[in-house]
């Protein structure tokens, strides 16, 4: 009888244990593979200090921790633990010295590389040393414009000293990402060729490295020890970044379920994706985008490109462009181009007109600043005032008392864009057509990308259609592009030779506002935007609306404009 009781008791205990165990099993990872289509080729590296393209940036973001947390909802730096959206970052707190030049970062002590080594402030210091060593191929040298030094007195503390107070300091501190320093030599001689750069077997994010099949895919596996997982575990089996180099095929693969995630699908196929969303087959998230197109003018004489400064740092007075050197002409052209027609024709309505370099999605965007209205009659009038009239009735304007062009010079210019970009080709065609209606002859040419870069950097062009992409959180600073120091034929980014000291001063001022309040800074950027709109170094066109799309099988998908992957650890994919 006693034996029977013991058997019964054991049976009961087993049943209880099974009952308790069952829900636990049911709450485990749901699994599935996240499959994103990628347009570019193989990532060149997985080292965050060497990465320069979107492919490696995407994969590094899924495998490596960030330094400073970002709240995806407001796209601004935030302390880990401040709210559940801030995750995957190492710095849990920071203190700023009274003079605003010293940031003391407190690192978490619960973050480990997948080989069990703790992620520490020493890793951060190592990354900084790699950047300043001069031995590495990093493109992060620009952080030294803001940061003077980094010290790591202990494993959880890093002291970052700035040259001077800077409202973008946290952004710059965040640009420096940790790498597993214990896998690298301290003299950085083998830094660029370290095998970890190509096969990062040690990571610390929600995913670990799986494999790279050249020209096909990169796969990542769920990290079973990811410390910031919302559910306590990474919910999917892994992530595949599948190379699909044709934009049309990419959308077809998505609609057919061969991939289940898209970032910024081609604008001409978005209506198909929206139609699929209406049937419930896919999920779509549209937002004001951060990529924008413009037409840049060369304000200096393309026949005689000159640097902005001489060897002693003194300004060189450059010969102006015979047509675009006159700001009244640039303003007139802004009135002659119908931005809405361009947005409809080139990006299928998926865009927002811009009036300056600040995108509508930015915190610094001045909503009161409207683009110049489309008014061809006014454009003609303004051009006449600037000395451009059709004296011989041949349909093309001629200079008649223009500021820099000799009398009789026809209003003709060459406009380039890169071959293969149908969107910019459409923009160029529309601009050519609309300007022809006010007597401006545009020789529009689509040319090979490298040829265009050659012409652009050589500063031998009249005008070029190109685009920029802002980051998140948005840094509206344009000093790199508009400073006189960058006006260097052959290698500088100020290829249009736009010099306006007030613009540069304002950008500097906006980064040094006491307290760094966004409203105070936005007020300064508002003035900057007004000046840039009036100066028209670019003909500002549009920001392309952003779109993320996921199959309805992807559960937990909850993107913000700044980051689709902020909660990727909680996603799963239904079979």
């Amino acid at each position, binding site marked *: 009888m006693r034996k029977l009781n013991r058997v019964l008791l054991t049976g009961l205990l087993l049943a209880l244990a099974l009952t308790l165990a069952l829900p636990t099993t049911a709450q485990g990872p749901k699994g599935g593979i996240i499959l994103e289509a990628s347009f570019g080729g193989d990532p060149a590296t997985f080292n965050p200090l060497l990465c320069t393209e979107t492919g490696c940036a995407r994969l590094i973001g899924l495998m490596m921790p960030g330094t400073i947390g970002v709240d995806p909802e407001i796209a601004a730096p935030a302390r880990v633990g401040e709210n559940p959206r801030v995750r995957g970052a190492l710095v849990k707190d920071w203190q700023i010295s009274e003079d605003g030049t010293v940031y003391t970062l407190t690192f978490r002590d619960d973050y480990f590389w997948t080989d069990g080594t703790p992620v520490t402030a020493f890793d951060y210091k190592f990354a900084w040393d790699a950047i300043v060593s001069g031995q590495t191929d990093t493109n992060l040298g620009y952080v030294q414009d803001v940061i003077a030094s980094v010290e790591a007195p202990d494993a959880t503390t890093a002291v970052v000293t700035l040259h001077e107070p800077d409202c973008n300091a946290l952004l710059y501190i965040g640009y420096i990402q940790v790498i597993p320093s214990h896998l690298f030599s301290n003299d950085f001689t083998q830094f660029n060729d370290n095998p970890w750069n190509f096969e990062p077997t040690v990571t610390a994010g929600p995913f670990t490295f799986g494999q790279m099949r050249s020209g096909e895919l990169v*796969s990542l596996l769920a990290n079973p020890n990811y410390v910031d997982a919302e559910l306590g575990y990474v919910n999917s089996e892994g992530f595949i970044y599948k190379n699909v180099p044709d934009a049309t095929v990419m959308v077809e693969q998505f609609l057919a379920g061969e991939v289940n995630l898209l970032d910024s699908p081609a604008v001409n196929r978005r209506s198909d994706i929206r139609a699929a969303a209406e049937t419930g087959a896919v999920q779509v998230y549209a937002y004001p985008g951060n990529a924008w197109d413009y037409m840049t003018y060369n304000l200096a004489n393309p026949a005689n490109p000159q640097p902005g400064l001489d060897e002693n740092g003194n300004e060189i007075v450059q010969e102006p462009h015979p047509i675009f050197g006159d700001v009244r002409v640039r303003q007139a052209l802004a009135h002659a181009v119908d931005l809405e027609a361009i947005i409809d024709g080139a990006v299928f309505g998926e865009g927002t007109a811009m009036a300056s370099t600040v995108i509508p999605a930015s915190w610094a965007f001045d909503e009161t600043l409207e683009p110049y209205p489309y008014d061809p009659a006014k454009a003609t009038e303004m051009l006449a005032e600037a000395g451009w009239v059709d004296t011989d009735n041949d349909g093309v304007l001629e200079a008649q008392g223009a500021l820099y062009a000799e009398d009789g010079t026809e209003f003709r210019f060459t406009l380039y864009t890169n071959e293969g970009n149908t969107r910019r080709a459409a923009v160029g065609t529309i601009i050519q057509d609309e300007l022809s209606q006010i007597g401006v002859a545009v020789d529009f040419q689509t040319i090979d990308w*490298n040829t265009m870069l050659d012409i652009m950097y050589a500063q031998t062009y009249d005008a070029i259609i190109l685009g920029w992409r802002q980051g998140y959180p948005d840094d509206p600073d344009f000093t790199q592009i508009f400073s006189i120091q960058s006006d260097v034929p052959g290698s500088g980014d100020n290829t249009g030779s736009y010099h306006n000291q007030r613009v540069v001063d304002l950008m500097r001022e906006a980064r040094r506002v006491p307290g760094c309040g966004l409203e105070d800074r936005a007020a300064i950027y508002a003035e900057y935007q007004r000046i840039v709109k009036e100066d028209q170094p670019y003909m500002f066109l549009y920001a392309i609306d952003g779109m993320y799309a996921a199959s309805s099988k992807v559960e937990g998908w909850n993107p913000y404009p700044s980051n689709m992957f902020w909660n990727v650890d909680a996603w799963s994919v239904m079979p």
Partner: protein
Amino acid sequence: MVKYTIRRLIQALPTLFGITILSYLLMTAAPGGPVAALTFGQRITPQEREAMAARLGVNDPWPVQYLRWLLGDDWMRWDSDGDGVSDGSFLIPLDADGDGEPEPPGTRLGIIRGDFGTSFYARRPVLQVIVERIPATLELGLASLLVGLIVGVPIGIIAAVRRGGLFDNFTRIMAVIFNAVPIFWLGLILILIFGSMLGVLPMGSRCAPTLIGDCPPIYARLNYLLLPMLVLSTGGIAGYSRYMRTAMLDVIGQDYIRTAKAKGLRPRQVWFGHAARNALIPLATFLGPAITGLLGGAAITETIFSWPGLGRLAVAAVVQQDYPVVMAVVIMTSIATILGYLLSDILYAWIDPRIRFD
């Protein structure tokens, strides 16, 4: 034959040398440059761009760059006293980036010594980057070549036998259409029909995406090969069928065919046993370019079908001005061309007793 082959190979060396010089000259003369291609849109100062150009050696005159690629640069900049600092240089400056410090000694050995260099973009050894793509390239190329021959040759023979008939006219029209249709269009249409609408074939890639492990053996993933192979073989089918038809018609007029008929052989024996066998001989000359085509890849087809072949890599390398990769592809395709034509000649002499090695 051995002597002939060795002589031809030796004769090919100057050709190969000339090809590399011309290719390097054209590549470096092209507008833009690796630094602009690699750094556009990045926050890089003009000084950093200059330093990068010096590091990559792309600021040197093209003959110096070529010599570095061919013979290496360990003899261009060296450390004679072993203190780790360069103290001598030839052809290139000791301090290329002008920072007051001599650059480190050269470590490149040049392709003569088996060093193809490091890709500017991928930052990995060029040979590794290229070798990764060769299996997929050969897979698609060989399959397309075989399909082209297996389908095109019989069509040509039948068209010649039924000259002027319905089949001949139909295949002629089809050959023109297949030759004229743009590959990217055909590829997209096939993807839309078989992948999107019918859902019976995958729309691209070499095999199903997996988290770990390589692609399974080819027989287990023929569905992935089918569409790109069809697209790539259309030109071959059209070309081989027309070529075969012409060759057959030439042969049909020969005396020995008349003799064969006079002997009372059955038409099938005449056409296939005598005419077709002899008409196939000139086709051997096609094998040279065909082999080159195999290794050169098919950039458009590979792009449409996300096929990880060498063609896509080569086009990307040209756009990125990745000189070491471009040159490696040039060397490889040049060697393949030379060997391909040599093989054609040998095959030709082997199967045609009238031709003798000289």
